[in-house]
């Protein structure tokens, strides 16, 4: 089964290139195209004012905006625990983390704007349900340990995906990723520390940590997107140096990195097929339930509806505020003009 190219999320978005884009490609001038590819091959950065193939621009818009949406929607599952964080230090760290994600969103929307699409337009697409965001954020956070598991696994997987993007051929995206990756690695460490405290804590805390790992392990592996055999646009993205590693390579790297961490915590990865392959120096893992992945993508995950509703509510209830800000700015400008006249 081939997966639709709409399967472009957050970090999963690395395959993104619509069929429509391929058509335009042919129409573009060969010389420009060649010069562009030569620059990309030489690891030069492409900047907003530079010529670029229309398909490259559209791929980037889709990928970066999906990444931005994921940051914004991603504020919700953890934000859920701000008011109940179990210590003032944890509350501080959590607010700062959720705030960072909002900052990432704003920063990435700005990067997308350099490609000629406004933030308002992109947010409109998200609220109308036309844009994708990482499916991982459609899972619930019923306990405090879910906050730890998200930091450890979800931010951990995001780092695996995003570190190579720091060398992305498109300058503004690459620079945004440098800054974002620094913060994500903070988040990952803080999440791991939560898990550490829990797994060294009371029986109830340890149990809470294990349950959260059980909930987040498989969705985290799904964050890397469909397997290479199913992923049809990787080659072009690789050639454009938007993508550097395949989904399966990154997924394997994540598993190799994370399994020893789980062992150190004394927690069990919920995969009976997980085993060490000494010869290959890898951990081999069981089969991912791609059906679940598809279902969550199609909107049938546990929290898809709630997440979008929360974003829509914030947007709708904030309209009068945004309108007032615009009206006030206009009045200010008018008053200034009439004084000047």
């Amino acid at each position, binding site marked *: 089964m081939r997966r639709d190219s709409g399967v472009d999320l957050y970090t999963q978005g690395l395959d993104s290139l619509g069929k429509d884009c391929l058509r335009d490609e042919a129409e573009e001038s060969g010389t420009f195209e060649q010069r562009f590819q030569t620059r990309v091959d030489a690891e030069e950065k492409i900047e907003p004012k530079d010529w670029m193939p229309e398909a490259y621009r559209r791929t980037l818009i889709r990928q970066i905006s999906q990444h931005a949406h994921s940051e*914004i929607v991603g*504020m*919700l599952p953890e*934000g859920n625990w*701000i*008011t*109940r*964080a*179990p*210590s*003032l*230090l*944890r*509350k*501080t760290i959590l*607010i*700062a983390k*959720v*705030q960072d994600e*909002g*900052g990432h*969103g*704003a920063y990435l*929307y700005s990067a997308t704007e350099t490609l000629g699409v406004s933030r308002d337009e992109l947010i409109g697409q998200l609220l109308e349900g036309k844009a994708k965001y990482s499916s991982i954020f459609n899972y619930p956070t019923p306990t*405090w340990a879910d906050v730890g598991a998200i930091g450890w696994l979800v931010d951990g997987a995001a780092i695996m995906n995003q570190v190579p993007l720091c060398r992305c051929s498109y300058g503004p995206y690459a620079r945004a990723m440098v800054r974002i990756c620094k913060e994500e690695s903070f988040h990952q460490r803080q999440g791991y520390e*939560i898990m550490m*405290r*829990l797994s060294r*804590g*009371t029986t*109830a*805390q340890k149990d809470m940590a294990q349950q959260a790992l059980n909930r987040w392990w498989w969705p985290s592996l799904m964050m890397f997107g469909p397997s290479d055999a199913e992923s049809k646009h990787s080659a072009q993205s690789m050639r454009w140096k938007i993508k550097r590693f395949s989904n399966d390579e990154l997924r394997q790297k994540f598993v190799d990195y994370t399994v020893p961490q789980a062992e150190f915590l004394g927690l069990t990865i919920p995969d009976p097929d997980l085993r060490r392959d000494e010869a290959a120096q890898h951990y081999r893992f069981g089969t991912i339930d791609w059906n679940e992945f598809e279902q969550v993508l199609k909107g049938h995950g546990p929290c898809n509806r709630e997440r979008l509703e*929360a974003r829509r*509510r*914030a*947007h709708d*209830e*904030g*309209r*009068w*505020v*945004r*309108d*007032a*800000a*615009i*009206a*006030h700015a206009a*009045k200010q400008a008018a008053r200034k003009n009439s004084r000047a006249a």
Partner: protein
Amino acid sequence: MMPHCAYVLRIADTSLILAQRLGEWVGHAPAIEEDLGLANVSLDLLGQARMLLSYAGELEGRGRSEDDLAYLREESEFLNATLVEQPNGDFGQTVVRQFLVDAWQLELYEQLLESKDPRLAEIAAKAVKETRYHLRYSAGWLVRLGDGTDESHARVQDALTRLWPLTGELFSTDEVDREIAQAGIGPAAEALLPGWSARVAAVFAEARLAAPVMSPFSWHGKQGRHSEHLGFVLAEMQSLHRAHPGATW
């Protein structure tokens, strides 16, 4: 409880409960910038609360930590101003509440710079810088909303009418305040009124807002007598911590 400790707890709890209220907004604000802005203010207030709670714990001398004080006290032991426990309402009501408190905290921290208690003076020195920024943020929004559209004007004027009666408490000097003022530790509550009134009036004028008349009844949150809202704030804030007695996080 000795007045010194009670006084520090009043300031601490006011910051803590307001931080808690602002935390409810994060992820749900009218624009990303406001998610970030409200989170910033919340974080600063939380930082103030943590320093002050730790200090109150030391003054009390019973070995209670910031978390013991935040998570294991009962509603009647919280000494925050009643104003900060009021629900967020819409963004306008949050802005009005924030503005009224920011202007008060700025007066307070400025005067605490001169405190004979070096610890309080030190905390105030950090807090005063943060509070100036908070006031710029809330005053900026109050002017935008007051001056913006008919709807926004009506909403913030309404919020002001609702919250104004809760400001009386901030300036009514009681026994604790008197002792604190006599010891040179902090200003008498009423001493903050002239500066606060002047700041508030200036921004109201710019925001085209009318200050309601002060109503005679004053709340007494700083004496542990609260509105109906604090119980719910604490029930939520303390739930997980209390469900696992003695656990570390």
